């Protein structure tokens, strides 16, 4: 039977905690910026402007249908060839934002399209401008309708951010890998990492819950 020994993990807990902090920071920033990209993308996709819609379509389909690993690889190793060179951590953030933006665009678009036409008509009849209608009439119910899907995507983002270690960016997973290389206590490390990721996800879910209660708890229409 395998003898578990968590000593090496606890001896290096500070390393893992720092990694966890990096993951939180990276994914939080990516969520915020990704939300902005998603909203813009969804607006463009539901707008009447054809070329804009096509452009967003291409962006969404290319990003959604290719692996994140390859996207980040391209951004970090490929872009220097055309003179765009970023530090690993910046490249990781950029790649994550571009990635989550594509998924978010589609999710939010579905939310926007779920708003009954009558709501928009009422906004128009009140003389509200399209921007005001979007901002005050559409956004909140649209986000409410797809909120679980969107927050799931954000949790997924946090978990997949571990891929950034391929370009030597630092995060919780890479801290775990470093520790693994020094101690070879793989099971112990994986167990502790799993628990830490779980706690981070729990933290984010709690945050999403707070946001939901603040904005989306109005009684649903009959």
């Amino acid at each position, binding site marked *: 039977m395998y003898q578990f020994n968590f000593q090496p993990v606890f001896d290096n807990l500070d390393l893992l905690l720092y990694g966890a902090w990096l993951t939180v920071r990276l994914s939080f920033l990516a969520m915020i910026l990704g939300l902005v990209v998603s909203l813009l993308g969804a607006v463009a996709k539901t707008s009447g402007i054809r070329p804009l819609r096509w452009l967003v379509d291409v962006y969404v389909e290319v990003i959604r249908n290719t692996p994140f690993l390859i996207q980040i690889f391209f951004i970090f190793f490929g872009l220097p060839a055309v003179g765009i060179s970023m530090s*690993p951590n910046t490249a990781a953030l950029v790649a994550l934002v571009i990635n989550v933006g594509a998924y978010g665009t589609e999710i939010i678009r579905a939310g926007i399209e779920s708003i009954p036409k009558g709501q928009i008509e009422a906004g128009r009849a009140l003389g509200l401008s399209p921007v005001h209608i979007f901002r005050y009439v559409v956004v909140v119910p649209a986000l409410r309708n797809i909120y679980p899907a969107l927050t799931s995507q954000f949790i997924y983002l946090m978990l997949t951010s571990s891929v950034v270690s391929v370009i*030597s960016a630092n995060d919780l997973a890479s801290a775990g890998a470093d520790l693994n*290389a020094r101690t*070879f206590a793989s099971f112990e490390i994986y167990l502790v990492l799993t628990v830490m990721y779980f706690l981070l996800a729990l933290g984010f879910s709690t945050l999403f819950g707070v946001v939901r209660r603040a904005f989306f708890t109005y009684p649903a229409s009959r």
Partner: protein
Amino acid sequence: ADLAAIESAGTIKVGMLVDFPPFGIQDASGTPDGYDADVAKALAESLGVQAQIVPVTGPNRIPYLLSGQVDVLVASLGITEERAQRVDFSAPYAGISIAVYGATGTEVAEPADLAGQTIAVARASTQDTGVTEVAPEGTEIRRFDDDASAVQALLSGQVNLIGLSNVVFLQVDKVAAGKFDKKFDLSSQVQGIAVAPGSDALLEKVNAFVQTARSDGTLDEIHQKWLGEPLPDFVKTAE
């Protein structure tokens, strides 16, 4: 693993890397091949059983062994003190030497010159350990998932130094002839066949195999085939 069980099953499950040329590769038909594969076959032969090769990766090879999914690792596993606490090593059956390489123009002659430089290594590799040990304060070590990514960082100009084995550097030099050269040696590294702790009977047999193969020319022949020279002396003499 239990020697008797292996013998009665008639096969030994060997974990090996398939992404570490020329030690472990996959040939064009997808079959594992390379120095490790040949050693594994020779080992099986000496035990009088069939070798069943299980492809493993750098990060998961030790879990594979410890959880009993494979009986032995012939997986270019460098012998280090930390690893020796987890697994039992045979006598060395292969070796590589590790050095710092870099762009020809870069002036780095000794570890102290690394200060202020950015150097790429494969995470959790021997070169990672080696560079980390000697690098002075102010060195930025970038750890990539594997040698290929680290080399890509070098080729794309994201770093201008790399910790690499002589074997892999040979290949880099073919891709970018003359653009990079060796700066200084880090260490030489011998590799052992690993078994899970408590497999003493198996380990004894493996050790017997390695001793014989080192002296009767079996390993020289395989080494010649894959690396173009006989087994280096530092391997033969190491314990």
